[in-house]
């Protein structure tokens, strides 16, 4: 586990749970007193409920020889009580699950009292579960082989895991993510500068019309009406000002055009770069990542998340800077024209901000309720449409209609709430602003006509008109701010999700001087291989075997025995935790994965065909194969006949949205694909388990042809399909328990294989008739 990941876990535990992120030092010192200085804590967990089911702290600490329960005092970090017992006295661990409370009893020998009992909420379940797993393992004849477990890391990971699966948990701050996102702008520096300069010029130009209008009044209209200037001169100035006005407006729209276009382009470039980076990175990631994440969430990261970022870059970033600039320029202009009036307008600004904020908050609560009702409404639809046959069969149409109706009504009722809020807010808000304009008039009139009958006007009418026009512009950026903050929130969370993918390290990495085997001969050796998908639960507990080139091995055993794990390791989807896997005598971790996998073939239980023609699918691993080769492979796979019967033959589109092939047909296409690929090592994972008997025979024939001259590892539940295997490996609970030919294994009277075989025969006899 990387330290980065651990640090992230610690942060999550600290931020989202109210319990210590590591074992308190006082517990360590208490343990030192009973266990001595040199003793380490292998694993620990918190039991957060006491016998009265009150939230409290009792630490469960697993040492090499003892299990200790350290009870803390309710407040602070002081120890209340330490109890411990030797691990060898534990003869059983009983769990009892309640709605929110799990009770675990450590049982002693028969007739002896229980050693201890702990209670905890689900939050602790995974951490306690690891301890229970280790204890239970030591009760079996295959005790847990203690690896280098880091107790702090295991504990933090167990607690952080549910949180991490719920969100793109990410230790970076918002600001760091924001800057990283802006980093994507770098390659487009030129265009961005252009876009921003255009935006700024446009904003500056917005100041001009109002100013010119004022000038028109003060230098043309008023002086002419007062008889101060001649008609000709008035017109001369007027023409000049009008021409400036026209030029300004044209320029302004021109720069708006530049800005919109460039920023929209740049947004698309960045979304493209992000999509490319995620998709490239996805291909580098190990299979493990894809088994942890659901497909929908990966797809939405590549598609909709990058789209939101486009919106943010194209509009959010510029709108925000334009709004800031606009507010400053407007303030500047107003103060320049008349500072007293300017102050009069600016002082109520904070109140307006507050009003917008309060309104947003009230809307937020109402929106949440709408969202909830809406998701209820859609869930009724998505529930009944796929289940429509059941609805009809049980004649429940009326009931479902009523259910939908009531959900629909309650949604509409909820929308009224939000309509009430905004419909009353906006008229009031606008009324407030208009009142402010009236107040500005009231404040300005004495200065326009003089404060008393004999007073002199101290303000020119044109200045006042410009002022009013600026005031009208003022509320636009305020509104924009409210929208941008919402947009910003959305795109930041998208950015988090995207960066989380980008920051995931692939678990299987090639060495720098990775070796290419040309060709792979096909000898496979496992030496004491230990592996688990998580560090505590081992799936393979020390498996060793040797497979000669060209040999066919049948892998059998009950489910959960570790068969699929063995082939996952042979395909190097994962690396073993310890032990060695050797291909032709070379450690698999020294090989070039791409080169190795190109000589490896897999036929799975549920074969996957890509969207495209059958021809393209068969050629998937071998782009340059000739049509003759494709037909030969299809014939060998017993696929040629059914393909020819399709109206469009090999050109039939299959896969998603394509022609639907039956399971057996798809299987044979995938076998043809494997035959054409001509792998040196072939893996068959339950290739015939989901088809009927007739199809199975077809597939079996195809497989028999496919397995010639290669090393084959085949998993099968139906033992009859393995009759061609040279040897059978029987697995049970992570061990290779038996190996040999079918006949030899049947000789073992109470062998695992014998039992499996007898059971299948009985079942066959019982149901065959």
């Amino acid at each position: 586990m990387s330290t980065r990941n651990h640090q992230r876990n610690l942060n999550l535990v600290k931020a989202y749970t109210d319990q210590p992120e590591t074992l308190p030092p006082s517990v360590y010192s208490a343990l030192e007193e009973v266990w001595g200085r040199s003793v380490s804590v292998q694993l620990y967990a918190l039991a957060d409920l006491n016998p009265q089911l009150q939230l409290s702290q009792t630490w469960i600490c697993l040492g090499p020889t003892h299990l200790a329960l350290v009870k803390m005092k309710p407040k602070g970090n002081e120890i209340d009580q330490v109890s411990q017992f030797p691990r060898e006295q534990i003869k059983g661990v009983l769990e009892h699950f309640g709605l929110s409370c799990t009770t675990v009893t450590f049982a002693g020998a028969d007739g002896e009292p229980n050693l201890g009992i702990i209670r905890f909420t689900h939050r602790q379940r995974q951490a306690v579960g690891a301890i229970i797993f280790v204890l239970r393992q030591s009760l079996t004849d295959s005790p847990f082989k203690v690896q280098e477990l880091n107790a702090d890391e295991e504990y933090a990971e167990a607690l952080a895991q549910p949180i991490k699966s719920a969100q793109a948990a990410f230790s970076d701050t918002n600001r760091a993510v924001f800057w990283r996102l802006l980093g994507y702008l770098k390659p487009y520096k030129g265009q961005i500068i252009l876009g921003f300069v255009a935006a700024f010029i446009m904003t500056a130009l917005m100041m001009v019309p109002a100013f010119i209008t004022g000038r028109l009044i003060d230098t043309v209209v008023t002086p002419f009406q007062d008889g101060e200037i001649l008609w000709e001169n008035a017109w001369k100035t007027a023409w000049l000002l009008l021409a400036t006005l026209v030029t300004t407006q044209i320029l302004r729209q021109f720069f708006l055009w530049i800005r919109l276009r460039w920023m929209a382009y740049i947004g698309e470039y960045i979304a493209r770069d992000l999509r490319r980076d995620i998709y490239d990175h996805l291909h580098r990631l190990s299979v493990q990542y894809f088994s942890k994440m659901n497909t929908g969430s990966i797809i939405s990261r590549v598609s909709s998340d990058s789209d939101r970022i486009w919106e943010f870059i194209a509009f959010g970033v510029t709108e925000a800077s334009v709004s800031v600039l606009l507010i400053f320029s407007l303030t500047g202009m107003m103060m320049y024209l008349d500072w007293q009036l300017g102050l009069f307008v600016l002082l109520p600004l904070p109140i307006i901000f507050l009003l917008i904020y309060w309104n947003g908050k009230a809307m937020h609560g109402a929106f949440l309720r709408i969202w909830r009702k809406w998701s209820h409404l859609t869930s009724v639809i998505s529930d009944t449409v796929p289940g429509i046959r059941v609805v009809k069969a049980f004649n429940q149409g009326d009931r479902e209609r009523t259910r939908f109706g009531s959900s629909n009504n309650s949604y509409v009722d909820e929308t009224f709430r939000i309509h009430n809020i905004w419909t009353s807010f906006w008229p009031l808000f606008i009324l407030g602003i208009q009142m402010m304009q009236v107040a500005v008039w009231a404040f300005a009139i004495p200065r326009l006509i003089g404060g008393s009958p004999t007073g002199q006007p101290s303000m020119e009418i044109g200045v006042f008109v410009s002022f009013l026009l600026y005031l009208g512009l003022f509320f636009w950026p305020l509104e924009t701010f409210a929208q941008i903050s919402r947009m910003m929130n959305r795109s930041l969370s998208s950015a988090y999700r995207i960066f989380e993918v980008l920051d995931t390290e692939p678990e299987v990495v090639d060495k720098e001087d990775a070796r290419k085997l040309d060709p792979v001969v096909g000898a496979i050796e496992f030496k004491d291989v230990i592996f688990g998908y998580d560090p505590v639960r081992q799936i393979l507990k020390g498996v060793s075997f040797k497979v000669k080139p060209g040999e066919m091995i049948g892998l059998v055993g009950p489910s959960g025995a570790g068969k699929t794990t063995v082939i996952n390791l042979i395909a190097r989807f994962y690396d073993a935790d310890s032990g060695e896997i050797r291909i032709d005598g070379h450690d698999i971790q020294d090989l070039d994965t791409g080169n190795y996998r190109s000589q490896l073939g897999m036929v799975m239980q549920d074969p996957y065909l890509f969207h495209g023609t059958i021809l393209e699918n068969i050629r998937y691993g071998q782009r340059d194969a000739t049509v003759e080769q494709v037909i030969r492979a299809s014939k060998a796979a017993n696929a040629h006949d059914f393909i020819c019967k399709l109206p469009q033959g090999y050109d039939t589109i299959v896969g998603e949205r394509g022609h639907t092939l039956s399971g057996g047909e798809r299987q044979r296409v995938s076998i043809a694909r494997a035959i054409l690929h001509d792998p040196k090592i072939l893996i068959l994972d339950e290739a015939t388990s989901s088809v009927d008997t007739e199809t199975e025979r077809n597939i079996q024939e195809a497989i028999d042809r496919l397995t010639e001259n290669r090393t084959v590892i085949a998993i099968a539940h139906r033992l009859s399909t393995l009759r061609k295997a040279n040897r059978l490996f029987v697995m049970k609970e992570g061990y290779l328990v038996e190996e040999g030919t079918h006949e030899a294994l049947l000789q073992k009277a109470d062998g695992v294989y014998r039992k499996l075989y007898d059971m299948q025969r009985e079942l066959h006899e019982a149901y065959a008739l």
Partner: protein
Amino acid sequence: MNAPAIRRTEEGQLLVHQEEQPIAVSLRPCFPWSFPESFLSLRDKDGKEVLLIESLESLDSESRSALQDALAESRFTLEIHKIHSIERNFEMRIWKVDTNRGARTFEIRLDDWPRKLPGGGIAIVDLAGDLYTIQDQEQLDPTSRKLLFAYAD
């Protein structure tokens, strides 16, 4: 066959005394919300049903109280008494609350909403699977009610 006697050891282990050897069982209520005190399934350590108790009434008083104790533990959820804050953090909402068992912080998914319980009240499941219940929203203080407004009717 005698009526089975049910006992609970000090550590909380339920035992069914039916014939000779007492059998250690665990309690699985069939309808924890709809009929909390009826149809209680008692299962042995392999998960096989030893007894299905249709109602507590049919038992002697000692057995009944043993089962009631076990029920209290199995039905244990954290009851929210006060909500301090509900904050959105990207894909989750973080609730800070006081429960009848002490203070607690928990997280739920953004698109997860409290569930209405058949017997009244609401239940909230957090990311780890722990259940938090509110018996009667009207009994909460005004601040808590205001915070809850968006999440429950």
